């Protein structure tokens, strides 16, 4: 980076790419950096070539990028998350490989695969990506896809706003991605604590990449939360009382409320840090009355609710699959609702346990320690409820159930290590060690990742019309379980032995065996990723054999299983009248669930629009310009956003009308198809005989 800021290119010049680094300082670290950038560039070129060759640009634009349909938006969120997941897992593997080779000596302090600064970028991007651009888009995507279908609604309350939210998330993800190629990312971890991330200790673009990615995608998440909440409060089908909602809807409601109240804290802490860095404010500086502890305080006001934002949708998924694949009604519905809401509320009262060692009084620490332990109670209630749901059920060991079992075994260990850390006197000993790293991976991987992958496996046929391969799905699940155990259990031991977290090197040879085990776990995680990709590919190739056009492959009890697979854009031919908690199950009990509605009416759908796409482009340009101090582009971007909003507000936008005849025709064809398909029994579920029409005599949920 040159000292002078150019009026046109800002701080950008040719020295910012990893390719120049590798020429100037050849070594494993710069080679890995250049390799990652090459993968990004070549991947982008390959994608462009593929889309051009297959003539997919038109369909991509018309059917996806401009679609306000929540189901498509949900699928795009999940696609984004899976791309980012690939990068996150590979980074995790590089870190494990580095630490396995990072034993230093007194003479040669630093060794290993990557340079210390590169290692710091790796754990910072890994954390940022996994939390904000994998876990968040996964759960927001899944909720987008499932929530309206379960509520008996056609779409979200604000479909175009939904598009904007996706655009903002994608713009943030793009900023993190482009930091691979242009410049460096920050080295302050995913939390970016000042004063280290202030201007004095972290000059340059790294922290700014993080700041703008977080501010932009955080705005998107706030709007998403608001959209979910309004959808749940105002868009439920007639008769869908709160206590009739499927549990996934309840956990979505908790998530919505938490997003609304927690995301602003992140916005404030990041905006304050941005003001410190760009305008010399003194919120978190060492001098002139700044107070860096206030950053940790505000950040974790967001950060702690955030971990429950991540976990609650997974709890919703586990509630659905434990019941469906056990052929039993969910045990303790009311207690699960109360437990979810309790978790949502208590999660706002524990944030201080992230900085027990900051120096506040023992009394304050104890209060927050107790609150932290209390949150284990509703979580425990849930685990017992799911186990009771499966107890004496006819459990089918499908992929989601493998994930659920892995979750049972591992999440409880992670939860218990959390209770240990909630004790401030123990926290003083092990905080900032890899014990903590093991703990939070132990709740987030078996909780969020397994939950979301189980959910994807469960609802995939609804989105695309064919099931995912059970064989490969189970292999992937076993690899993720094994990969987790080998990677993170050693970190508990290492933490107790005194290995600090985020350390690029260590001098104690006793650590090495554990590092090797963890690196082996990293290999298993890579295999799990490959297996996940292969699951999608092989299922796509065998899509004819796996097709479930009947739309109800698992003999489910909630409304989304009443429609064809893939689900049509209007979801329901007419809005269902709900009379029971498990509406679709009750209809099966009553016999003839696939009865056609008495009459069809015209359906109003929101018209396609490029609004969200344009806002995403403007915000990405703004974020990139702010990172590189390209002021003219930043001003242009920041003016474009209200300009686009006002331009849209000025126009009268007519909804798209789907005529009743068209709906009646499509629906009639579906009902004929269902009547013609053979009913599949539970034993047939994984075979070609499962065409999405289950034997309703077997329904017992």
């Amino acid at each position: 980076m040159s000292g002078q800021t150019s009026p046109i290119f800002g701080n950008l010049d040719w020295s910012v790419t990893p390719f120049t680094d590798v020429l100037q300082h050849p070594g494993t670290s710069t080679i890995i950096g250049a390799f990652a950038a090459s993968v990004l560039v070549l991947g982008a070129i390959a994608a462009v070539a593929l889309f051009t060759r297959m003539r997919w640009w038109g369909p991509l634009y018309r059917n996806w990028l401009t679609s306000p349909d929540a189901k498509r938006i949900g699928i795009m969120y999940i696609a984004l998350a899976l791309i980012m997941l690939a990068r996150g897992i590979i980074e995790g593997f590089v870190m494990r490989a580095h630490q396995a080779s990072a034993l230093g000596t007194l003479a040669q302090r630093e060794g290993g695969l990557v340079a210390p600064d590169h290692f710091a970028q790796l754990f910072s991007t890994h954390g940022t990506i996994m939390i904000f651009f994998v876990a968040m888009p996964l759960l927001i995507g899944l909720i987008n896809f499932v929530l309206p279908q379960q509520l008996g609604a056609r779409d979200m309350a604000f479909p175009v706003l939904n598009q904007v939210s996706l655009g903002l998330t994608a713009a943030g993800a793009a900023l993190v991605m482009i930091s691979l190629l242009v410049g460096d990312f920050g080295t302050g971890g995913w939390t970016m604590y000042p004063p280290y991330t202030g201007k004095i200790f972290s000059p340059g673009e790294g922290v700014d990449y993080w700041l703008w990615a977080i501010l932009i995608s955080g705005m998107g998440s706030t709007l998403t939360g608001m959209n979910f909440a309004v959808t749940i409060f105002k868009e439920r089908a007639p008769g869908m009382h709160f206590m009739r909602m499927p549990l996934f809807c309840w956990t979505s409601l908790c998530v919505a409320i938490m997003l609304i109240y927690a995301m602003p804290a992140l916005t404030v802490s990041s905006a304050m840090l941005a003001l410190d860095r760009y305008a010399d404010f003194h919120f978190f500086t060492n001098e002139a009355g700044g107070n860096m502890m206030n950053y940790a305080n505000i950040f974790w006001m967001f950060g702690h609710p955030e971990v429950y934002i991540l976990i609650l949708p997974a709890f919703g998924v586990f509630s659905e699959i434990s019941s469906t694949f056990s052929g039993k009604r969910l045990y303790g519905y009311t207690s699960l609702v109360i437990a979810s809401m309790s978790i949502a509320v208590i999660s706002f009262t524990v944030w201080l346990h992230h900085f027990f060692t900051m120096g506040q009084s023992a009394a304050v620490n104890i209060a927050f320690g107790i609150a932290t332990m209390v949150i284990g109670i509703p979580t425990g209630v849930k685990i017992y409820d799911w186990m009771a749901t499966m107890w004496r059920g006819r459990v089918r060991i499908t992929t989601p159930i493998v994930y659920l079992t892995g979750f049972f075994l591992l999440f409880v260990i992670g939860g218990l290590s959390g209770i240990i850390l909630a004790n401030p006197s123990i926290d003083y000993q092990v905080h900032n060690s890899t014990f903590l790293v093991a703990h939070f991976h132990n709740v987030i991987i078996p909780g969020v990742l397994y939950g979301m992958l189980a959910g994807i496996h469960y609802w995939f046929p609804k989105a695309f019309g064919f099931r995912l391969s059970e064989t490969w799905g189970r292999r992937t699940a076993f690899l993720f379980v094994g990969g987790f155990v080998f990677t993170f259990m050693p970190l508990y031991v290492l933490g107790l032995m005194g290995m600090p977290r985020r350390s690029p090197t260590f001098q104690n040879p006793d650590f090495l065996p554990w590092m090797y085990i963890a690196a082996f776990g990293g290999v298993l995680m890579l295999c799990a990723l490959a297996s996940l990709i292969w699951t999608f590919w092989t299922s796509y190739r065998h899509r004819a054999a796996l097709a479930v056009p009947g739309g109800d492959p698992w003999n489910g009890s909630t409304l989304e299983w009443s429609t064809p697979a893939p689900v049509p854009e209007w979801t329901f031919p007419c809005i269902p009248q709900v009379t029971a908690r498990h509406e679709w199950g009750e209809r099966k009990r009553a016999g003839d669930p696939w009865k056609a509605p008495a009459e069809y009416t015209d359906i109003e759908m929101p018209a396609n629009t490029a609004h969200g796409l344009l806002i995403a482009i403007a915000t990405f340009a703004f974020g990139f310009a702010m990172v590189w101090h390209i002021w003219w582009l930043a001003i242009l971007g920041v003016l474009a956003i209200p300009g686009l909003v006002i331009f849209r507000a000025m126009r009268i936008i007519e909804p798209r009308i789907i005529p009743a005849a068209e709906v009646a025709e499509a629906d009639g064809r579906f009902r004929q198809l269902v009547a013609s398909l053979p009913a599949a029994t539970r034993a047939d579920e994984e075979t070609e005989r499962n065409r999405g029409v289950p034997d309703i005599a077997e329904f017992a949920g």
Partner: protein
Amino acid sequence: MSGNGLYPGLNLGATHGEAHEDAEKTVFGFWVFLMSDLIIFGILFASYASYLDPVGMAGGPGPKDLFDLTSVAIQTAFLLVGGIAYAGVSLALKYDQGRAKIITWLLVCAVLGAGFLFFEVKDFIAQAGEGGVPQASGWLSSYWALVGLHGIHVFSGILWIFATIGQIATRGLDDVVKVRLSMLGVFWHFLDLIWVGIFSLVFLVPLA
């Protein structure tokens, strides 16, 4: 329901039909958004309080050196009268008194909001001249961020007023514009609410 068949709030069409449900949904969504915004202000208020001590002021100018309560009182008057003026918009909308009256009241609101901003910016310039820039101390950073953010909100409100006038002029008073007018009203009153907090906690408390 009052005698003339109108509801206390916004009235769209003759019956409680689909337009009402849509309006309810949209306005409810906007309330939710403002609650989220309120958290932002809440955290800024808390931060302001935490920097309001000798350590946070770091030897720089303090409230007694910088705050001019007369000017703050004038700003308060402008903003609160501006809030009352929005009642003119709501009433004209409710009783169908025509576009001209609605636009007039909207302009009155915009002028009063601009009056507020004029005195606020004047204060900011004066404070900067006395060394009270946000770069001087943690306390001043939090003061400028909190009061400045409110000022940006007022500025956005004025922009929104003109965008709405543009919509009334081009597309007329359809249901969509009516709902937006009621959201604008919620926003405009929200700014008063925040200002009451700023006036008391930012200006009065440190001078008391």
